[in-house]
C-alpha cells in the first residue's frame, strides 16, 4: 500500500497534493493507493480527494504542528499497512515526514525529483550540495519520501473511493500562540511557474512595488535575495537561496540580482533564467538564458508595459 | 627529519579566522576607505574584539603572546583583504616592539594595558622630514629638565600617529653623538606640546592614517624612557629587524590576491572565442606569480622561524621584506596587465593592489637599505 499525504487549504487540494498523487501512481507496482487528509476543515477536501484515490483517510486534528501531522500520518500508515508514504516537500512536509520516518524506521528520501520502484527498493533522484549535485539514492521499503514541487504533472481524477475517518490522539508539547500569515497576494513561491525576484540593486523597498506589479501581470510569485531580506525590505519567507526557498519554475526572472552562489543554490535548476542587471559581468548572466544589460529602474517599467500588452 | 613545514592545529585555526575576517570584514569595505582616505575604525574595533589586534603583547600583560610565525600567518590573510588596512595593526605592533625589547616590567604593564583593555593602537616615530633612511641623522631634540625630557622637532610618515594611544619617539640628546645620542621616549596621546597632522594625498594604503607629528616643548617624564640614553638607536634597529617580517607577510597577501584575481579573470574573460587563460602568454604570467608567491612565503616563514627560535635574523628579515615586496609588486603589475583596460579602472580591485604594495618597497627601510643590510651581512662574515 502507498499512502499519499494530501496538502490542502481547507477548501481544496493544493497543486502539490495532485503532484504527490501523480508520484504515487508512478509507483503503483508497489501496491494500491490510499490518501490521507490532515488538518482542519478536512471533510470537503476528503470528498475531492476521493475522486483521485480508492481510499481516503481523514484526520481532523486542527492547525499544523509537526507532531500532529506525524501522529495522524502514522495512524493512517497503521490503518492501511502502507509501506510507502509520499508527501510534498515544503518546509512543513520535510519536518513532520522526518518524525514519521523515524517512527516507521523507514528510509527517508527527501525532496525527490523522480522516483521509481526497483524490487522492494525505491530509487530516487534528488539534488544535494546546495543544489549543485544531482544524486541517485536507494532505500529499501518501508520508505517515506517527499516530492519536490513542480517535478510531477498533477494527477487527473480517476474513479471514486470511500472516505474513512481516523481518530488520532493529539500530541501535546507545542501550542500555537499566533500565526503571522503574510497576506500573500497571488501565488506561493515554491509552487509558482514563474518567479520574479528583486535584488539589492533595486535600491529601496519602495522600488519593490514595481517587482510586485510585474509579478501580478505575469501571474508570478515574488522572490527576494538575502541582502534584500537582511535589509528588512521583504520578509524572510520570500527569500530564494541557500537559507531561503529553493524554486524551480519555468521562468525565473532576476531583477538587479547579482547572483551569488548562495542565491544560485535556490534557483539554478529553473527551466529558463532571465536576468536584468546593469553590470554585464554579474555572475547571474553566466547562468541566464535571456538577459538585458541595463538599468533596472528603466527596464522594469518597460517590461511591465510590454507584458501588459502581451496579456491584452 | 628536523625540517617540518606543517602548521599546528592552532595556527590553522587562526589562519582560518583571519582569512574569514579579511573576506567578510575587510575586503568588502576596502575600496570605500581607499577612496575616502579614511581609517576604518569599526574594523579596528572588530579586530580587537576577535583578538587580532596587538596580539604580540605577552599573555602576562593581557595579550596573546603570538610568535612571529603566527603574526606572518595573520598578516598574509589580512593584507589579502587590504594592505592599507593591515598596516594599521602592523604599525601598532611596530610601536609595541620597542617596549617589548627594552621596556621595564613597570613600563610594559603601564603601556600595554592601554592597548588591551579597549581597541587602541600604538605607533613608532623614527623618520623625519630631513632623514628617512639615515636614521642616525635625526634632529628631534630631547633635552633633560629634571624628571622630564623636553621634546622639540618633527617626525613624518608616521602610521597610526594620530590615532595611537602612545607613540615611541626617537630623539637625540646631542646630534653630534650621532647614533650614540639617541633616546627612545614613549609619548602619550594628549601630552601638551604634541600634535599630529594627517598627511593627505597618498598614492596607496589610503585606509591607514599617516601623520606628521610635531613636538613643541613637549614634556615627557623620564619614566617613559625605554632603556638608557644612547640606547635608542639600537632599540630602533632591533625593532625594525623584527617588524620587517610582517611587512613581508603583507606583501604575500597582496601577491596572493593578485594571483587569485588574475586567475579568475583569465578564466572568465574570452578572447578569440576562448578564455584568455588558454593562452600561454597568460599562463606564463600566472606561473611567474605563483613562483614568486611560493618562494617568498617559504622564505618569510623561514625568517619568522629564525626569529621565534632566537637566532640571528637581521639579514633574513631584510631578504624577506625586500623580496616579498618585489614579487608582490610584480604580481600586482601583471594582474593589471592580464585585466587589460579593466585592470586600470578603479572598478576592479587590481590597480589598488599595485598602489598599496608600492609602499611595501619603501617603508620600514627602503629595499635599497635592505640590500645594504644584506650586503653588510655578507661582508662581515
Amino acid at each position, binding site marked *: 500500500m502507498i499512502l499519499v499525504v494530501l496538502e490542502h487549504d481547507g477548501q481544496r487540494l493544493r497543486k502539490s497534493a495532485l503532484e504527490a498523487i501523480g508520484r504515487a501512481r508512478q509507483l503503483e507496482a508497489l501496491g494500491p493507493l490510499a490518501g490521507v487528509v490532515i488538518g482542519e476543515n478536512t471533510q470537503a477536501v476528503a470528498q475531492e480527494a476521493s475522486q483521485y484515490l480508492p481510499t481516503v483517510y481523514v484526520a481532523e486534528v486542527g492547525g499544523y504542528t509537526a507532531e500532529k501531522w506525524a501522529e495522524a500520518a502514522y495512524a493512517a500508515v497503521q490503518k492501511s499497512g502502507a509501506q510507502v508514504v509520499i508527501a510534498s516537500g515544503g518546509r512543513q512536509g520535510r*519536518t513532520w515526514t522526518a518524525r514519521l520516518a523515524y517512527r516507521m524506521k523507514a528510509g527517508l528520501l527527501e*525532496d525527490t525529483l523522480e522516483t521509481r520502484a526497483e524490487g522492494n527498493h525505491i530509487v530516487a533522484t534528488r539534488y544535494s550540495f546546495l543544489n549543485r549535485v*544531482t544524486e541517485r539514492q536507494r532505500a529499501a521499503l518501508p520508505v517515506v519520501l517527499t516530492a519536490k514541487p513542480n517535478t510531477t504533472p498533477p494527477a487527473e481524477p480517476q474513479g471514486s473511493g470511500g472516505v474513512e475517518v481516523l481518530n488520532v490522539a493529539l500530541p501535546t508539547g507545542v501550542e500555537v*500562540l*499566533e500565526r*503571522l500569515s503574510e497576506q500573500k497576494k497571488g501565488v506561493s513561491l515554491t509552487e509558482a511557474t514563474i518567479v520574479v525576484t528583486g535584488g539589492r540593486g533595486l535600491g529601496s523597498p519602495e522600488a519593490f512595488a514595481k517587482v510586485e506589479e510585474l509579478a501580478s501581470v505575469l501571474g508570478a510569485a515574488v522572490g527576494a535575495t538575502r541582502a534584500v531580506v537582511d535589509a528588512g525590505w521583504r520578509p524572510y519567507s520570500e527569500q530564494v537561496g541557500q537559507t531561503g526557498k529553493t524554486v524551480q519554475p519555468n521562468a525565473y526572472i532576476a531583477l538587479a540580482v547579482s547572483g551569488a552562489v548562495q542565491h544560485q543554490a535556490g534557483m539554478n535548476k529553473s527551466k529558463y533564467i532571465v536576468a536584468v542587471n546593469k553590470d554585464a559581468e554579474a555572475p547571474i548572466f553566466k547562468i541566464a538564458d535571456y538577459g538585458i544589460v541595463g538599468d533596472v529602474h528603466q527596464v522594469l517599467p518597460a517590461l511591465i508595459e510590454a507584458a501588459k500588452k*502581451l496579456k491584452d | 627529519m628536523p625540517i617540518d613545514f606543517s602548521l599546528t592545529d592552532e595556527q590553522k585555526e587562526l589562519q582560518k579566522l583571519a582569512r574569514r575576517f579579511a573576506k567578510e570584514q575587510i575586503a568588502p569595505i576596502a575600496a570605500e576607505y581607499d577612496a575616502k582616505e579614511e581609517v576604518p575604525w569599526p574594523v579596528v574595533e572588530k579586530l580587537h574584539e576577535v583578538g587580532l589586534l596587538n596580539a604580540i603583547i605577552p599573555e602576562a600583560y593581557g595579550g596573546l603572546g603570538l610568535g612571529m610565525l603566527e603574526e606572518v600567518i595573520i598578516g598574509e590573510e589580512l593584507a589579502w583583504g587590504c594592505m592599507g588596512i593591515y598596516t594599521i595593526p602592523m604599525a601598532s605592533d611596530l610601536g609595541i616592539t620597542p617596549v617589548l625589547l627594552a621596556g621595564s616590567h613597570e613600563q610594559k604593564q603601564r603601556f600595554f594595558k592601554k592597548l588591551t583593555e579597549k581597541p587602541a593602537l600604538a605607533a613608532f616615530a623614527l623618520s623625519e622630514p630631513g632623514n628617512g633612511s639615515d636614521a642616525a641623522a635625526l634632529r628631534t631634540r630631547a633635552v633633560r629638565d629634571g624628571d622630564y625630557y623636553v621634546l622639540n622637532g618633527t617626525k613624518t610618515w608616521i602610521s597610526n600617529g594620530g590615532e595611537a594611544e602612545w607613540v615611541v619617539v626617537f630623539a637625540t640628546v646631542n646630534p653630534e653623538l650621532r647614533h650614540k645620542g639617541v633616546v627612545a621616549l614613549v609619548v602619550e596621546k594628549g601630552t601638551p606640546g604634541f600634535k599630529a597632522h594627517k598627511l593627505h594625498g597618498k598614492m596607496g594604503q589610503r585606509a591607514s592614517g599617516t601623520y606628521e607629528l610635531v613636538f613643541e616643548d613637549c614634556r615627557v617624564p623620564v619614566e617613559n624612557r625605554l632603556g638608557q640614553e644612547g640606547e635608542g638607536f639600537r632599540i630602533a634597529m632591533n625593532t625594525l629587524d623584527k617588524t620587517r617580517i610582517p611587512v613581508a607577510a603583507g606583501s604575500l597577501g597582496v601577491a596572493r590576491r593578485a594571483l587569485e584575481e588574475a586567475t579568475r579573470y583569465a578564466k572568465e574573460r574570452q578572447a578569440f572565442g576562448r578564455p584568455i587563460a588558454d593562452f600561454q602568454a597568460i599562463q606564463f604570467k600566472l606561473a611567474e606569480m605563483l613562483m614568486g608567491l611560493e618562494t617568498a612565503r617559504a622564505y618569510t616563514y623561514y625568517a619568522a622561524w629564525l626569529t621565534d627560535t632566537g637566532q640571528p635574523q637581521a639579514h633574513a628579515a631584510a631578504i624577506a621584506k625586500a623580496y616579498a615586496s618585489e614579487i608582490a609588486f610584480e604580481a600586482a603589475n601583471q594582474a593589471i596587465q592580464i585585466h587589460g583596460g579593466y585592470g586600470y579602472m578603479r572598478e576592479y580591485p587590481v590597480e589598488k593592489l599595485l598602489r598599496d604594495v608600492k609602499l611595501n618597497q619603501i617603508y620600514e627601510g627602503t629595499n635599497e637599505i635592505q640590500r645594504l643590510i644584506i650586503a653588510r651581512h655578507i661582508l662581515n662574515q
Partner: protein
Amino acid sequence: MKFLAVIRQVPDGESRLKIEGGRVDLSGATLILDQMDEWAVEEVIRLQEKHGGESVVVALGPERAEEALRTALAMGIDRAVHLVAEGYLDPITQAEALAEVIRAEAPTLVFTGGQQADWDSQALGPALAEALGWPVVSWTTQIELESETQAKALHDLDEGAERVRVALPAVFTSQQGLNEPRYPTLPGIMKAKRKELKKLPLSAASKAEVLEQTIQERTRLNKLIDGKDPVSAAHELVRLLHEEAKVI
C-alpha cells in the same frame, strides 16, 4: 541548564566541487562549520550567557569534523562530543545514534541547522526530536526561555510564520535571521585546545544509500540584449519569452 548544539562540517558553498568515480570528491574543498549549524551554536552560547549552565556541541561525522567542533569550542562552547563515522549515513540513522548521546547528556534543549549544506537534508532535527520523544520547532528565528521547562519561539512555516510555546526539552532548527554569529576569537582558539573533546566510534548501517552523484550544469542560452533603449529591449525580451521559450 544545559544547552546543546548538533553540528556538521560541510564544504564552503563557494568551493569548487569535483566528481571522482561517481562521488563528490571533497579533497580539494574548503570545509567549514555548516552556516546553519553556526547559527545553532551561536544561539546555544547566547542562551548559556543569559541563563547560565553548560554548553555542549555534538557532531556525527568523519575524523575531519573535529575541526568544526574546534571552531564551535573557539566560539565559546564548553565541551564537545564527536561520534566518529565515515561516509554517508541517512538522517534517521544519524538521529538514532545522536539520540543516545543526547539522552545521556539530558540537555534543556537541542539546537541544530535547518538544512545541511552537503546532503541538503532538513530531517536531522525533527528525526532527532522523534528519537528523543520531544517536540520540534523547525526554521526558528527567535527563541526565548520562559522557564527550565518552557520556551517561546517564532518559526517559519511554508508560508508565513508562527509564534509557539514549547514544552522543554525540545529540538529547534535554525533559520537565517536567528542571530549574527560571533567569530571564534583568537583567545577562544587558544582556549579551545584545552577543552574536552570526547571521541566515540560509531558503526551503523545507513537505511538509504547514495548510488551515484553527478554535476549536471544546464547549458544556458546566454542571449543578452543591450538595455540602452529600455523600451525596445523589454519588448524583445517579452517576445523571446513568449515565442521562443513559451513560458509567458
